[in-house]
């Protein structure tokens, strides 16, 4: 009961005119920043942090959290309408969101994303309100072996469940992971894999460079070549009735993915250093694994949109948990929020809930309000985003190229990276022609910087003995499941051969 009274006072704090106004502005700004390829919640929060010094700390963090929420919703918009993930958290949304848009069902994809995000955010906020201190201790038990096992599971879902050519999928994963190692070795600090001795590679290869190259350039070239430049698959008609029927269909065909994403996203988000990207990718994998129609995934399944979208919102709330209770940021965005809190004179950690309970509960109350504001504002803007698809493809295509290049530069501020985007784009076009799946490479470059240090730290802990991944109570089962998933294609092949031999 005590929690409910705290929560009620928190919601009242969030509903104060200044806070409500900041929530509405924050969510709208976040929505547009998130929808821009190359910019995500981290950019929005970082850029707008200085202006929050004009308002009290509670209002400031409510504003930043609203931007965070808005950007999480917005990431789905460019994934669906442009086919380019606006941020790493929206990579998995592209897998089914883009096919739906190409089938003329962009509004269904966007409505599904909005509703799933709302459910994900709300479920996570309820968990947050109820179990905050308890979950913080569970998350603290996740050491490097457990986190590496989780990463392995994320890759395994792609190998085991992808219908694509297995060697090409494995190549793609390894390629993405190698690209993530370019730059400096994070442990020894020495330069590593400075390809062809070009100094620009010392800065590493960012996820966004590969993602924009693959989706913004490569995929676009492929689409133009395949459709002979005549794309007539989009259905731009948007009515209130259509929106309502899309919402009904989204609930009917996306509820399973939404629940999986909401639950899994929250728990992955709570883990320090994991965050919304692995959460959304794993939710997609698990939703596909438990689906009765896994073959629909990748071809426009509403569940495939709902799972990652519910997960990234759920995880973004979850990632605030270790930040507030332990002072450990679960994602780059929460790291900036943490910095902001320190500047405002607040000390994140276990005592925050006691010393600054009004602040904490005001923030939690704002999660509920931000979530509601985000879904309503998002649904109101869907006709605008769908309208974009009414443009002839000969106008839309150059706009996508322009947004890719400009967004790519905004994210990296480097001409070297722009040339890499072009090279990756042209390379991706040819690899796509030969059925190399490129989504695993994008997944790998995102997860690589988490996977490598956790693997090396684990092996250091065990003096080089890989058994550490099998003997620990949490890491063990996760590793075993991952290995079974990796071997699944071989097991299926053997069973098929056995059946042929018997018959």
């Amino acid at each position, binding site marked *: 009961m005590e929690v409910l009274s705290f929560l009620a006072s928190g919601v009242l704090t969030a509903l104060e005119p200044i806070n409500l106004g900041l929530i509405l502005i924050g969510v709208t700004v976040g929505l547009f920043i998130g929808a821009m390829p190359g910019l995500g919640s981290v950019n929005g929060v970082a850029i707008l942090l200085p202006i929050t010094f004009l308002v009290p700390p509670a209002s400031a963090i409510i504003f930043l959290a609203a931007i965070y929420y808005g950007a999480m919703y917005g990431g789905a918009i460019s994934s669906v309408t442009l086919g380019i993930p606006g941020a790493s958290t929206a990579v998995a949304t592209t897998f089914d969101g883009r096919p739906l848009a190409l089938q003329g069902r962009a509004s269904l994809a966007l409505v599904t994303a909005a509703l799933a995000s709302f459910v994900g955010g709300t479920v996570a906020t309820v968990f947050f309100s109820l179990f905050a201190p308890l979950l913080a201790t569970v998350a603290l038990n996740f050491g490097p072996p457990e986190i590496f096992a989780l990463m392995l599971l994320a890759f395994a879902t792609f190998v085991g469940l992808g219908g694509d050519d297995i060697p090409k999928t494995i190549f793609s994963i*390894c390629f993405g992971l190698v690209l993530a190692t370019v730059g400096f070795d994070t442990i020894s600090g020495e330069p590593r894999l400075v390809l062809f001795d070009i100094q620009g590679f010392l800065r590493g290869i960012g996820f966004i460079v590969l993602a924009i190259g693959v989706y913004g*350039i490569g995929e676009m070239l492929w689409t133009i070549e395949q459709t002979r430049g005549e794309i007539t698959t989009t259905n731009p008609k948007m009515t209130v009735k259509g929106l309502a029927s899309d919402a009904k269909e989204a609930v009917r065909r996306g509820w399973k993915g939404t629940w999986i994403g909401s639950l899994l996203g929250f728990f992955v988000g709570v883990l320090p250093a994991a965050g919304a990207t692995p959460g959304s990718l794993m939710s997609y994998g698990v939703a596909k694994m438990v689906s009765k129609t896994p073959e629909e995934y990748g071809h426009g399944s509403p569940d495939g949109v709902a799972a990652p979208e519910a997960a990234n919102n759920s995880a973004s709330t979850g990632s605030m948990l270790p930040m507030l209770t332990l002072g450990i940021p679960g994602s780059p965005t929460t790291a900036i929020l943490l910095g902001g809190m320190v500047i405002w004179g607040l000390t994140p950690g276990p005592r925050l809930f006691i010393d600054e309970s009004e602040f904490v509960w005001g923030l939690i109350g704002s999660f509920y309000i931000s979530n509601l504001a985000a879904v309503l504002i998002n649904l109101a803007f869907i006709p605008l985003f769908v309208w974009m698809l009414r443009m002839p493809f000969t106008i839309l295509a150059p706009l996508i*190229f322009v947004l890719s290049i400009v967004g790519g530069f*905004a994210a990296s501020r480097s001409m070297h990276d722009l*040339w890499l985007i072009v090279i990756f784009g*042209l390379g991706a076009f040819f690899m796509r*022609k030969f059925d190399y799946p490129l989504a695993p490479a994008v997944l790998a470059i995102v997860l690589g910087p988490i996977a490598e240090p956790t693997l090396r730290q684990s092996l*250091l802990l065990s003096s*080089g003995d890989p058994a550490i991944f099998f003997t620990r109570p949490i890491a063990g089962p996760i590793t075993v499941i991952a290995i079974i998933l990796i071997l699944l294609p071989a097991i299926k092949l053997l069973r098929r051969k056995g059946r042929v031999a018997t018959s």
Partner: protein
Amino acid sequence: MRQGEISLAGILALFSLYLMWKSTELPIGYIRGQGPGGGFWPFWLSVGMLLSCLAIAWNWWRGKSPAALSDEPLMDAFGWRTVLFVGGGVVGFVAMISIVSMYGAVALFLIYYLRFLGRHSWLLTLAIAVVLPVALFFFFEGAMQISMPQGLPFTQPFFDVMYDIIY
């Protein structure tokens, strides 16, 4: 397609070998007290890439992949034209950034694509080619405070006027 499949696998295998060699610049084994060396992770991943290429070649030899069985050409004349004009246009766009600034390159690319590839009217072409770079300027330089490349000095008068508006 058949020839392309094995050629691409060959190129990727060579690239994997290059990455393996490059990874050995840092230790690839276990260092007592420090854990695996800096080259360990990229080296074994590059080995994974090479083995995957060998598996792709094996599947090609057995005719197990669709491309390995296809006698069709990789692309017809339209496909090659697309790559040349659209892909070439994007390369030109990026090349122009250091000369005419990001916004100038956006305008030129839009004129090239909309007018010459899309065959839209001059009115529509110029409207988009002017409005979009200006809107992008206000969004990035004004709202987001991200500076884009300004090209050679001759573009400076344009930037002076625009900065006067936002500051």
